[in-house]
């Protein structure tokens, strides 16, 4: 392990002060499940790191609360804290299901939600869930504070809007109306401690037999976590039946190929993702009717 200074600031202001002075190569560390392995494996993302700023003891980036119709999740909340939280269990079941699939218990006890998406790895399991919930993220630096949608934040593979002097402090999610139902599916090589090959999240509102609104997001199988706006628009107002769901699944596959191009794995992944999506929609339909 390279020799690195580790700072453990006691307040958000201290962190912002440290981040504003970029004479040395700084990195934020929370759970460390990405940072420590990245350093050990000499990943380009962490090369030349001189200082790690540990944010685990900062109350502004911890805790989960609900107010004014929004659920606010501290950026350094661990997956286990999210999994066990009553607000999340009640209002954000898709996120709960997504965090339950991550790593192992040991990883979930340490790894944090912002750590999952802040490097914009395509396989981040919370991203499709956060995307269908229309999550926004709060970002602070010493002299600015902004809130943008997660979708805008995620610019390209391993690329985000985050500037060097900024930190993600909170993830905010509008409480979904009770009429919305959804689900999450992850396909990895095995059940536990698996990097996702395909993830899908769906959140929708049905009116009788019709789709009022549907939100569809993918991860791992697309270059970054992605929403499918055209498909969502196409599906709104349509009657839900087997033929239509099959059409929708076919179209999702086509949209994904458009984003990724044909790859050596497409022959396997295309039918897999279409079938997964169809089964996901059928499950939601069965559960809600």
């Amino acid at each position: 392990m390279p020799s690195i200074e580790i700072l453990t600031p006691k307040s958000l202001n201290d962190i912002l002060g440290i981040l504003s002075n970029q004479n040395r190569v700084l990195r934020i560390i929370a759970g460390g499940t990405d940072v420590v392995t990245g350093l050990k494996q000499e990943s380009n993302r962490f090369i030349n790191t001189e200082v790690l700023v540990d944010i685990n003891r900062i109350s502004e980036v911890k805790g989960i609360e609900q107010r004014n119709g929004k659920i606010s999740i501290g950026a350094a909340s661990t997956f286990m804290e999210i999994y066990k939280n009553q607000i999340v269990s009640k209002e954000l079941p898709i996120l709960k299901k997504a965090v339950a699939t991550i790593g192992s218990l040991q990883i979930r006890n340490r790894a944090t939600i912002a750590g999952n998406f802040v490097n914009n790895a395509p396989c981040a399991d919370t991203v499709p869930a956060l995307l269908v919930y229309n999550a926004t993220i709060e970002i602070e630096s010493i002299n600015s504070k902004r809130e943008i949608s997660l979708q805008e934040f995620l610019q390209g593979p391993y690329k985000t809007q985050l500037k060097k002097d900024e930190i993600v402090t909170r993830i905010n999610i509008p409480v979904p109306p009770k009429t919305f139902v959804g689900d999450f599916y992850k396909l990895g090589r095995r059940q536990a401690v698996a990097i996702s090959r395909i993830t899908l999240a769906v959140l929708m509102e049905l009116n009788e037999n019709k789709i009022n609104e549907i939100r569809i997001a993918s991860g791992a199988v697309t270059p970054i976590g992605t929403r499918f706006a055209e498909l969502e628009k196409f599906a709104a107002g349509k009657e839900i039946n087997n033929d239509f769901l099959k059409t929708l699944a076919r179209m999702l596959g086509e949209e994904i190929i458009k984003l990724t191009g044909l790859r050596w794995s497409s022959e396997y992944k295309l039918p897999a993702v279409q079938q997964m999506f169809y089964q996901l929609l059928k499950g939601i339909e069965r559960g809600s009717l």
Partner: protein
Amino acid sequence: MELRFKLNRKEVKVVVEPYIRVIDLLRDNFALTGTKEGCGVGECGACTVLMNGKAVNSCLIFAAQIEGSEIVTIEGIANGNELHPIQKKFLKYGAVQCGFCSPAMVLSAYALLEENPNPTEEEIKDAIAGNLCRCTGYKQIIEAISESAKELMAH
């Protein structure tokens, strides 16, 4: 840095580089070699210790991050020379073969039973999903944990 934390229920103080990993701190500075390194990247779970009661991978935590925390290793589980009931059940049910995964497996079981004294088989499997064992096929381990739960519940 001067690091203070609680190790196996005793306050300890040690001068270390902040960037050494907790597994190295335990093995090299405290000679607690029951904590094993398998993969070193959080996949095998052999380095599991309890941090404030929760199972964590000690290969993924820097020394500076445990300041003021409570760490329990396999050496802190037995009561003197008397093995902990979970350790006894591991022996009785053949859950130990080569033994490399056993310290971590026992700690994962310990953390589970502290929080959930009467787990289902699925809950046991989930609690040890991050602990690889290449000998037993897990069946004996799951049985040993389930039998430990019964014994601990009875007391």
